[in-house]
């Protein structure tokens, strides 16, 4: 009991001490404004992506599935299909203001899973809902745009000098909840579309945590009138 209390105290201390990384102002007119770099992180228009997704679930087990994501940045809608490598659809859902699950084969049929997945997709592919509250550079010199969403969550869009980028999502209590790292070129090398990462790595922090490594198989730009 004493140990549990100690752990709880330590946890409360960690939570209460959580803080956001400090953002330093950009000095010198030669440096581009961080907002310019941040805009290039998210795909513009309508796209269809196919990723080979390696999911590491609690317990350390790995699962490989294929994920089709069709997104529209203009109306902020997304549709996601998860299937086996052999093409059997396990999950099919659409986000358009609200979530609609078209198909869910256990264990992919829970609303919690669907909601979490769509939130991850929105984090990866769409500019944050909320306004820019701060921008500049981090201690390591990377550019950062900090947004605060209406629900209080903070999203940092971080672009590094080698043009790779990172997203960090914090709870309203400044606890790190998600990180997304994007890699280009050498690591995967499938993309022939500029600005589309070859590999994305998402980590969900906390309990139960999980990680998704998404390797791009193809990225298809869709015509604006294409139905989503």
């Amino acid at each position, binding site marked *: 009991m004493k140990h549990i209390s100690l752990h709880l105290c330590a946890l409360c201390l960690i939570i209460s001490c959580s803080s956001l990384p400090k953002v330093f102002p950009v000095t010198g007119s030669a440096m581009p404004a961080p907002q310019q770099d941040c805009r290039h992180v998210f795909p513009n228009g309508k796209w269809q992506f196919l990723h080979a997704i390696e999911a590491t679930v609690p317990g350390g087990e790995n699962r490989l599935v294929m994920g089709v994501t069709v997104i529209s940045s203009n109306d902020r809608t997304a549709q996601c299909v998860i299937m086996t*490598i*052999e093409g059997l659809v396990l999950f099919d859902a659409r986000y358009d203001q609200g979530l609609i699950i078209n198909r869910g084969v256990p264990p992919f049929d829970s609303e919690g899973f669907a909601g979490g997945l769509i939130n991850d997709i929105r984090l990866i592919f769409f500019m944050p809902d909320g306004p820019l509250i701060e921008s500049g550079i981090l201690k390591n010199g990377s550019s950062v745009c900090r947004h605060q969403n209406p629900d209080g969550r903070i999203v940092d869009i971080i672009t590094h000098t080698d043009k790779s980028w990172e997203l960090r999502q914090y709870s309203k209590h400044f606890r790190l909840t998600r990180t997304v790292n994007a890699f280009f070129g050498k690591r995967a090398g499938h993309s022939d579309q500029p600005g589309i990462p070859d590999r994305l790595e998402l980590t969900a922090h906390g309990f139960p945590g999980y990680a998704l490594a998404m390797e791009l198989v193809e990225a298809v730009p869709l015509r604006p009138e294409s139905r989503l």
Partner: protein
Amino acid sequence: MIMDRPKISQALPKVILAAAAFICIGWADTWDGIKAAAGKVTSVSAEFTQEKHMKILSRPLVSGGAFHFQAPNSLRWEYQYPVQSALLMHNGKTKRYIRRNGKIVEDAGASLQTMQVVLQEITLWMRGRFDENPMFSASLKPDRKIVLSPKEKALATIIQRIELILSERAGMMESVTIYEDENSFTRLEFKNVVQNRSLEASLFREF
């Protein structure tokens, strides 16, 4: 017995018709014909192309690879692109292997159980036993088509129906289309088919 001319002229078309009908009865016109043809097949190797069609896709997802079947129940179903992987079925055990970043990893995900059902189904097809599956009811249609419909509702939520087109060549399939629902289906087409070749047992055990 000698037939007179009018009787011959009346009987001849009937005989020709009957002969033509006999010639036209292909290996794929009856369950017995299918089983008899498939019974002569001890192994099959073929390449396949798979197209996944879904309403949301602007163009189908294409994958491909090769498969090897050894009677009675050994199967290797291998994808060579876009992701290298293989389903191996041998001695009643099914395994899935995936090549990731140069390493071979065994995947035991929940979907493997479903794929095991599919693989068992394929081995039944290869043996011509379309009508012997407890999970699907089979109906034989014209033009070498077989339609399999799930008997149980639970399976019907995953697979609505399967349509197989048998090849003109005895004991082989031309295509398989798996309908998951009205908006989603997967079509497999086979080529470079080789039958009754001796296959190494390791094909069904190792990736």
